[in-house]
């Protein structure tokens, strides 16, 4: 049964959490994530869900309380953004190291200073090596869908890792969209109660969080790495199953217009919608063919799928919505570069930073970028291979 609801990104995530039989939510408010926490508080206050809501005094404590509950065996959710994610930093590593399958929504927002509440990916990119699976949603429908799928991916016995569902601050968190939602019974069938492999159990006393000498430490870390690698297979299985249920087909990577095109733009999150829209217009009105590649799954980076996607691409412009001061490429640019080097591929790679602190990519800017891409593909030398998008196109 399909129902349509008008929800903002934050509301859609709260709605998904409501349907996922979550045992505990612990969170701390921060713009632009606050409404997720408020809606969940409403559900609890109105008795619509039995979830324990632990309204803590900081994000550090929020994720710490989540770890406690997750190790006790519950399905657990939290949400944060920006400074909140930065404050959680050390707890993020503890979560993945302790193999807690917690799901967290990250309402991507710039980091201070200067203070800025608007969208960019600096928060998640600052924690990209924290051992969490990282998904980027493009719109509100995806925010809802990925939240539900994330619990299933995280809790899979071959994975047992936390998942961050990223949604662009304001662009998605606060934008109302008409989305399809599942009935609770369907979600329950798709996502049965969590079955923890290990949990705190006085009947079987166990020690959690022991420290490890060098001969053990790296083995723990390699197991985490292995779980990360396993998660790609699980991710695809879950997306397939979800696709059968909803008719919405997800995967690790999505591409548009690569047929007959040797040039593409690659990005994460909501900007991909704008890029695709403008690419379509240029293709239909001007005959200019530029592809758009979007990663749904950023960690683990879906290397094989990326390589097969760019098989015919000769020029790729990678967009990063986070600055990596002093580095040659931004985080996504560096990831792409490393895949290209590893596979010994030969193509022209450009990497522009964009969208910092809510400096959104308008259709006009997207149009300029796509035209530049076409020119570069034709052999025109760009003014710069890197730089800030607005300044270089």
């Amino acid at each position: 049964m399909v129902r349509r609801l008008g929800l903002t990104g934050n509301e859609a995530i709260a709605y998904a959490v409501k349907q996922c039989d979550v045992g505990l939510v612990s969170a701390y408010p921060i713009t632009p994530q606050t409404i997720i926490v408020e809606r969940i508080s409403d559900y609890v206050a109105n008795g619509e869900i039995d979830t324990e809501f632990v309204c803590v005094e900081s994000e550090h404590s929020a994720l710490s309380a989540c770890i406690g509950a997750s190790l006790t065996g519950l399905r657990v959710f939290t949400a944060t953004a920006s400074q909140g994610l930065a404050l959680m930093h050390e707890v993020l590593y503890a979560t993945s190291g302790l193999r807690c399958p917690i799901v967290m929504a990250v309402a991507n927002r710039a980091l201070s200073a200067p203070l800025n509440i608007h969208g960019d990916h600096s928060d998640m990119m600052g924690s990209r090596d924290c051992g969490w699976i990282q998904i980027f949603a493009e719109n509100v429908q995806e925010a809802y869908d990925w939240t539900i799928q994330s619990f299933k991916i995280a809790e899979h016995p071959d994975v047992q890792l936390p998942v961050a569902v990223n949604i662009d601050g304001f662009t998605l968190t606060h934008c109302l969209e008409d989305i399809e939602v599942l009935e609770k019974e369907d979600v329950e069938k798709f996502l049965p109660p969590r079955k923890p492999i290990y949990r705190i159990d006085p009947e079987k006393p166990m020690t959690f969080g022991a420290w490890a000498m060098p001969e053990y430490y790296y083995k723990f870390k390699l197991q985490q790495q292995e779980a990360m690698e396993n998660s790609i297979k699980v991710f695809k299985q879950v997306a397939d199953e979800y696709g059968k249920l909803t008719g919405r087909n997800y995967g690790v990577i999505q591409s548009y217009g690569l047929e007959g095109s040797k040039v593409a733009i690659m990005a994460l999150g909501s900007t991909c919608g704008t890029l695709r829209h403008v690419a379509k217009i240029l293709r239909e009105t001007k005959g200019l063919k530029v592809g758009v590649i979007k990663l749904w799954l950023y960690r683990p980076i879906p290397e094989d799928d990326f390589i097969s996607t760019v098989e015919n691409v000769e020029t790729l412009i990678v967009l990063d919505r986070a600055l990596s001061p002093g580095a040659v490429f931004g985080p996504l640019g560096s990831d792409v570069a490393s895949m290209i080097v590893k596979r010994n591929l030969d193509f022209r790679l450009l990497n522009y930073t964009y969208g910092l602190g809510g400096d959104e990519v308008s259709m006009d800017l997207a149009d300029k970028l796509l035209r530049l891409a076409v020119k570069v593909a034709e052999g025109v030398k760009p003014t710069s291979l890197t730089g800030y998008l607005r300044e270089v196109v």
Partner: protein
Amino acid sequence: MVTIREVPLGEYWGPGHSACAGCGPSITIRLILKALRRPTVVVTPTGCMEIVSSSYPQTAWGIPWIHVLFENAAAVASGIEAAYKYMAKKGLLEEKVDVVVIAGDGGTFDIGIQALSGALERWHKFTYICYDNEAYMNTGIQRSSATPKGAATTTSPAGEVIPGKLEYKKNLIEIAVAHHIPYAATGTIAYWSDLMEKVRKSLEADGPAVLHFLAPCPLGWRFDPSQTVKLSRLAVQTRYFPIYEVENEVYKLNVKVAKPLPVEEFLKPQGRFRHLFTPKFKHVIEDIQKNVDGNWKNLLEKCTVEK
């Protein structure tokens, strides 16, 4: 009064842990675990007792035990307590489980104070126990806000002009009581029966409880490891560390010290105060004595009940 016959013979703090000889915190934990009343989960933040007990693949813990980070023990405990509440609500829990934090003074007075305050305010039903060895011992004896005035640590060294730590110790129990919790108390191993009774009482309290146990550290305080219990007793007998409890905000003195020894008796056996016994810094001992007397007087004024 717990009598020696009533102390369970079972050990939940396993032999083979790597604590120093004469480690006060280790003795404290052994007593705490013997005083538990039912299945219990213990959370310990980073610090000496975490390190000595959990070197993978070994553990000294005979009951479920968790370490996550340094400043978040109270928050982790909040999540566990809330999880059990949820399980009870859903009929998933066969037997009730107690949640206890056992944390150092650094993890409590300093970096963990925010998480502790939050957990108390949210009224999680748990017992938070601070074993106070008066410095960051795990990292090599650095000052904490529980380090007493005059003590030399590696970050408050006794130098030519500065006589060790200049500031007085923070009052943890007052901070706890300010949250209007039903039970807060001090204790120390020399008064083992009192200590164990307080653990039990805290678990039975109708809300969060905080216990502050002074735990002498031979290495950090620089005394002979055979003297741990004696130092614990001297801390009380000099009125340096009063033994009292606060039940529903009513104060009760548990160990009357009618004829207190001068505070020097507590300071003298400890290398960390050695510099105070020189003409240059002798005045600090007077300050400490005055502070002890003042604290005792204030406490007595609050104690409307005597035991």
